[in-house]
């Protein structure tokens, strides 16, 4: 069974004359254990796609299933509980709670789910150790570097053992060596990853790359390397033009 499945997902922002189609019928199946990258120029709908897949935004049409569960028709409360259990997040600007220490930030999802128990301390320290930050667990986010904050965010995303991790430009705010650390971590420790990025180097860590343009998936590349990804990105413009011409005909 696929960990994540999108079928004909459409998302229209606004109504009437102001309506903008951000996603135009995206279908995608992600089997367990894969590391997937989604690429595309700005405004191609990458973030919208990720938000829809993660239940943070409701699609206008189409279905999203995570671990076989249809996200449609669930209220905010139920969706949040579901996310807490099955989905982990890593964001571009880390999104750690500023007044919680690294340890408390990683512990947060367990606290919210009410599953903190005697063994959780051990598990949280283990998670922080896994990202190489056990010695800094009592620091506040502002006392950590960007790379360190993102590693805490990865530990937080993994702590509840979700079935899929969504990462939105996880390396966008990091220098190249911190970025490499974070990507290696995601690759090694995460079960299934769907990552949105515009960095060909980041995409080269993935098993396969999907290219998104104007709200549609236009092509796919397996076992990508940074160079061919970069080349493919430059061709995207032409691809889009081609698709538009076809649509007109």
């Amino acid at each position: 069974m696929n960990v994540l499945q999108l079928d004909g997902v459409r998302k229209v922002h606004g109504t009437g004359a102001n309506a903008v189609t951000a996603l135009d019928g995206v279908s995608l199946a992600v089997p367990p254990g894969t590391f997937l990258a989604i690429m595309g120029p700005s405004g191609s709908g990458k973030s919208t796609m990720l938000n829809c897949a993660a239940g943070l935004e409701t699609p206008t049409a189409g279905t999203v299933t995570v671990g076989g569960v249809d996200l449609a028709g669930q209220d905010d409360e139920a969706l949040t509980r579901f996310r807490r259990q099955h989905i982990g997040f890593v964001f571009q600007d880390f999104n750690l709670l500023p007044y919680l220490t690294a340890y408390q930030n990683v512990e947060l999802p367990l606290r919210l789910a009410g599953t903190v128990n005697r063994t959780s301390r051990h598990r949280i320290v283990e998670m922080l150790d896994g990202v190489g930050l056990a010695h800094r667990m009592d620091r506040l986010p502002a006392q950590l570097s960007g790379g360190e904050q993102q590693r805490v965010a990865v530990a937080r995303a993994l702590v509840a053992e979700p079935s899929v991790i969504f990462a939105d430009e996880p390396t966008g705010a990091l220098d190249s060596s911190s970025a490499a650390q974070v990507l290696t971590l995601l690759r090694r420790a995460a079960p299934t990853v769907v990552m949105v990025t515009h960095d060909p180097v980041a995409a080269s860590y993935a098993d396969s790359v999907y290219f998104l343009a104007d709200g549609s998936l236009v092509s796919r590349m397996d076992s990508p390397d940074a160079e061919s990804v970069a080349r493919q990105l430059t061709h995207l413009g032409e691809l889009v033009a081609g698709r538009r011409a076809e649509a007109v005909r």
Partner: protein
Amino acid sequence: MNRLAVRSVRSRITSFTACGLAVFLGATLMMAFLAMLTTGLAHGTSGDDRSTLVTMATVVGGWAVLIVIFAVASTMQLTVRQRSEEFGLLRTIGTTPKQIRRMVSSESLLVTGIAAVAALIPGWLLGRGVLAMLRNGHLVSADVHYHSGLAPFAITLVAMLAAAACAARFAARPALTGSAAGALTASRVGSPELSRRRFWLGIGLIALGANYSVMAMTMGNDGGDKFAAMSLAGPASVFWSIGLAVFAPELLRRAAVLGSRFVGRNASGQLATIAMRQRAAELAGALRPVIILVGISTGTLYMVGIDAAAGQLKAHDVATNSTELLNLVVVGMVSLFAAIMVGNTLVATIAARRREFGLQRLAGSTRGQVTSMAGIEAALVAATGIVVGGIAALGAVVPYTIVKTPGYLPTVWPWLFPAVAAVAGAVTVGTAVTATRRELRQPAVEAVAA
């Protein structure tokens, strides 16, 4: 720089509305009391009426003004504090501390000026109302004419502008000293330590309060002035309240530690108490008005209660009765002002937390969990304010009871303190929950991105 100030005010409309409201209501009260003074000093006013009006304006009006200025300064400080990070940002792009100080001053003067001018007519009307009440209660003769003039407005305007500008500068200071990069991160870490300046300010105010308490006890029965005890005990509770309110961040940190024992395994409660220790400086802005509300209402109302009980024993004399009524009305106005300030500052603190709430939701908090966290936080703030305000009230109540009755604590109106506590608690928690719900309407992703 002024254009920047106007834009900056526009983009933070909730915080500045809070400031404006504090100034508006405060200026209204202050102008009304100052109008008693100008009426008393006017040519046509006779000697007896003059002394009544001047006494009222200086004694009762004096402490009302103190509360008003404290409230305006506190709200302004809160608004500016919330922006430390923005000041850090401005500094990293090359704005000098001097330019930022000028911007902060312009902003606070702009908001304060507009709100104070808006209070001109309400203040004039309120003053006229208070005088009418004095006339009806036969505290002044019926032929006293209301004489306000422009002086009350001018004095109020200057006082408000000075209080707001000083508070704004004081609050901006931490973000303007040290390196620009340091200012950028410092705003996100912890809360400032108790500075020597603040420590001595608080101690000084409490000492003043204690001084008034002792004076009320020793001189309260002196001579023929039957209002001596009240005019000394009244300011006692005001100074005790303001003095203790200076230590609001430290009090909150203690309360958070204490509170964490009671929340048990409730996730929202645990989160609330952890966050409170880090955010004590911001939440202090919400605690201060609660202390003032509880301290002053409880203190003054018990004095009125004790007098009422004593009055029932003696023959009814018109002056005593009207004084009681007047006291109730004045305490009522000041309490109402303090209660509005409680709601006002809470709305301002919560409006600044939209992004933080979004972060929590992205980390897996349901809307209900965020709301209950904010509710528990507010309940802790209220509980702290009720306890500390209760202590401040004792500074007035104990001396007054000793002077007027055989005991140490009032036996009249046993429901009064619980009633004040209930009102303070309801306003605090109610406002927090409503304001939080409002901030949660937006989807979490948008709240974080904004």
